[in-house]
């Protein structure tokens, strides 16, 4: 098999696990990155606090690509503002667009996300938009210059798994960009299933942050994602709608 790489905006990655860094101790980041085998980690931008002398950048191993998100943005303009501040923080030009006008379900606003994607792609960003899995929106994101599309599996932080399975499958089948399943993936089996469906990568945060042993769960996700990828590449076996099909020879039975 040729080397299997994930290519996002011309950058090559071997890992298909994008790690979140929210809601857990900075001290666990290094172990999480290592055990996840992650090459990309997400971050948020917030007002700086002079009382906190520790900075998350001091805890992220060298060589890991930073993927700042635009959380807190309610419009495309706010997302652009946050993305530009993130780029000024001096860590590359990747950005995950996150635009929400709703704080109960935290659902992304696809319309504003399409606008922000176009604006940021024009500014030279590698744009990864977080979106509700809708085919037309995904096509618009492609046309707007997205480098990948990040459909949600279930509401952010819910750990509910692939609630949008069929619609993610449509994006996998129809969109000619990496489909990175983001939000809602709660356990490794769900990550594996999304990869079996042909997702290019998985983004997870809360599933790890709320696990009993974070680095161990990171390792479990890594293996599940790798297993799902191999299964997808191998081509899944067919499913019978009725009846069974013997796995053993139907001749040479030990009887008259």
């Amino acid at each position, binding site marked *: 098999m040729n080397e299997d790489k994930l290519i996002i905006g011309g950058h090559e990655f071997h890992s298909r696990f994008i790690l*979140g860094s929210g809601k857990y101790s900075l001290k666990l980041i290094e172990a999480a990155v290592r055990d996840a085998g992650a090459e990309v980690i997400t971050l948020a931008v917030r007002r700086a606090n002079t009382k906190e002398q520790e900075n998350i950048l001091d805890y992220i191993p060298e060589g890991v690509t*930073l993927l700042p998100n635009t959380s807190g943005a309610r419009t495309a303009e706010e997302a652009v503002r946050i993305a530009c501040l993130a780029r000024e*923080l001096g860590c590359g030009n990747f950005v995950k667009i996150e635009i929400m006008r709703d704080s109960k379900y935290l659902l992304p606003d696809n319309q504003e996300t399409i606008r922000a994607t176009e604006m940021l792609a024009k500014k030279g960003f590698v744009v990864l938009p977080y979106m509700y899995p809708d085919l037309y929106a995904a096509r618009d994101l492609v046309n707007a210059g997205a480098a990948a599309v990040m459909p949600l599996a279930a509401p952010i932080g819910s750990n509910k798994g692939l609630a949008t399975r069929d619609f993610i499958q449509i994006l996998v089948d129809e969109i000619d960009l990496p489909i990175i399943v983001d939000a809602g993936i709660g356990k490794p089996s769900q990550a594996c299933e999304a990869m079996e469906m042909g997702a290019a990568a998985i983004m997870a945060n809360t599933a790890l942050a709320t696990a009993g042993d974070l680095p161990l769960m990171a390792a479990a996700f890594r293996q599940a994602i790798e297993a799902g990828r191999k299964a997808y590449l191998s081509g899944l076996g067919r499913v019978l709608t009725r009846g069974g099909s013997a796995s053993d020879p139907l001749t040479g039975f030990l009887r008259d």
Partner: protein
Amino acid sequence: MVKINGEEQAVAGQTVAEYLEKAGYCRTRVAVERNGEIIPKAEYDHTVLNEGDAVEVVSFVGGG
């Protein structure tokens, strides 16, 4: 007064570099925006904060 991260502060006349140092920010770990415009790091030393400016000082935190 200068509004910094939502709080009024009596720092008009200071340069951005002076303000960041006195306030205890690590200048390599923050980005600064004034009245909606990003101030490049190379300009911190000679950019003076004016009365009525609205300034945001941001940094990376953990997120998903």
